[in-house]
């Protein structure tokens, strides 16, 4: 289940980036494509697929965008009609300011940033130690990190909550502190192994050469390993950001203070006392931001998602 393997490309790397020159072939050969019995069903299937994807994938999001600027009564009476009684732009500003979406959005960003930073620090230092420095206890450590992959998240829920309630040795409670989300996020075996695996494939001569030149472990780490690890850090960053953005149950448990809660925890609470049109506007704003981020970093997202399968496989 947890065998970390890098996808071994049979064809040259970066093939996705150059769709213009498409020497690659799939199931249907060029000869097949010339046959009419293949060509038309193939085209029809592509059109049908595109229509289905637009309706199913984009449809609900477009509806949300429409409903966000539609008065409540129209949404309730004729949900599929397009602005029968005009557009109500005020919903957006009302959701943003009166119901403090801006504030909770800030909390979400802050949570995502902190989780991202902690995950990067743990994954890079951990990967560096386990892959490059390799102390005597490295094998045991790798096994212990790997082992946590096999423990389903549900087992951790209650004991982790109690740990955050009273952190061992220091005996402070992290409840209502962002650290309660940031620190546990760092304990991601997936990230550590991904980075370790990446470092394993770097040529060791680089490290040896630096060591011969008199660089200590810190210097090698900072000047060589960190700059070299940029490609994998992009993938880890995307994973970290998405996970933090999606998290619901854990922040719900540890951030009881309304003032500290992220959007995901706050939205269900808003549902009960905010008017439907403003509520849908709030939902639309919360969706728009990750979608914009996705459209900007689309390539990293999709590569990361595909890699996720390769790593799990």
């Amino acid at each position, binding site marked *: 289940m947890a065998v970390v393997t890098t996808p071994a490309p049979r064809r040259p790397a970066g093939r996705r980036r150059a769709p213009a020159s498409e020497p690659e072939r799939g199931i249907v050969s060029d000869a097949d494509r010339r046959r009419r019995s293949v060509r038309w069903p193939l085209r029809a299937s592509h059109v049908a697929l595109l229509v289905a994807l637009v309706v199913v994938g984009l449809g*609900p999001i477009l509806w949300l965008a429409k409903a966000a600027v539609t008065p409540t009564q129209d949404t*309730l009476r004729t949900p599929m009609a397009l602005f029968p009684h005009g557009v109500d732009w005020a919903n957006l500003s009302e959701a943003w300011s009166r119901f403090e979406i801006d504030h909770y959005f800030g909390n979400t960003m802050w949570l995502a940033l902190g989780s991202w930073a902690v995950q990067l620090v743990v994954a890079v230092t951990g990967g560096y130690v386990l892959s490059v420095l390799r102390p005597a206890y490295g094998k045991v450590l790798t096994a212990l990190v790997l082992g946590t992959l096999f423990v389903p998240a549900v087992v951790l829920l209650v004991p982790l909550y109690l740990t955050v309630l009273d952190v061992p040795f220091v005996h402070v409670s992290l409840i209502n502190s962002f650290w309660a989300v940031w620190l546990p996020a760092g304990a991601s075996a997936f990230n550590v192994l991904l980075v370790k695996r990446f470092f394993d494939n770097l040529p060791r*001569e680089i490290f040896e050469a630096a060591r011969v030149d008199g660089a200590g472990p810190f210097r090698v780490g900072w000047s060589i390993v960190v700059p070299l690890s940029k490609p994998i850090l992009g993938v880890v960053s995307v994973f970290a950001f998405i996970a933090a953005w999606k998290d619901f149950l854990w922040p719900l448990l540890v951030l009881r203070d309304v003032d500290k809660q992220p959007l995901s925890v706050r939205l269900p609470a808003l549902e009960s006392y905010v008017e439907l049109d403003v509520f849908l506007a709030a939902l639309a704003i919360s*969706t728009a931001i990750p979608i914009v981020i996705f459209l900007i970093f689309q390539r990293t997202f999709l590569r990361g998602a595909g890699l996720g399968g390769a790593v799990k496989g």
Partner: protein
Amino acid sequence: MMTSTTVRTSEAVLREESPQRGPGRARRRRTPVTWVRGGGLSTLVIALPLLLVFGLFSWFPIVRAVVMSFQFTNLVTPAEWVGLENFTYVLSDPLLTTAVRNTLWFALLALVLGYPVPLVAAVLMSEVRRMRGLYAALAYLPVVVPPVVAVLLWKTFYSASETGVFNTIAGWFGLGPFPWLQDQAWAMPSLVLEATWAAAGGTVIIYLAALTGVAPELYDAAEVDGAGVWRKVWHVTMPQLRGVLFVTFILQIIGTAQVFTEPYLFTGGGPANSTTTVLLMIYNYAFGGRGDYGAATALSLLLALVLAVLSAVYFKLTSRWSS
């Protein structure tokens, strides 16, 4: 990420010849001073973030879960050893049968709906030559929507009134109105439909990545043997995807066994406990006012045990076919 065999061999050579590592160093007398001089202390300092974060927030809670399941803990009175009482209590809870049945029902529906659709979509998509990026982006879009937003949005869609979004659409075809979340029989399929919408895109991308990894020579060879499109799909593509398909199957089971956000936000387990899942039960034991942390961990350990046994049996069975 990109590996090549030349790197691996040079690395192996280095490891053997390098004087700093390997048996050479181990034979020297080791004292704390040589340990520090050899970089042992710096290594430990660099390992510190990993050790602290994993120690406190992963390894310690895992051990604690096992200990706690044999204790009675509510944080008010001191923890007491109660032997297997938590387990017998949880196992005799009349709600457990319902929760297990609901979780299995959710997993089964999620498989029926969510397993074949991404596969078919990915295979079709892999044959698209122009704008494949657009197809992939459209498929992935729902995955980007935060789960809580997705659930709350679909809750609006599922409005049981005649003018609800889905009931309006059903009305175009002369169907409905349907009760959706209000009805015991309809509630669970409604949850699964939303969960599938939210997750399918991720699986599509995984399959797409696996499909681009299929060696083109295999298709060439199949054609030489006179295979048409369907036979190529069946005899080349499917066997090549077997490994990925096996893994996504068990990962989906493990994921659906721990479903929480959907039942919690859509229905809170209702109507009449028809959507109470095992994880919702665990949540209610611990955080639903009772504060019965022992029972909650006992149930989560039982769930983990079932999943572990299931995956072990699964991999044992599939290893014969997937080699």
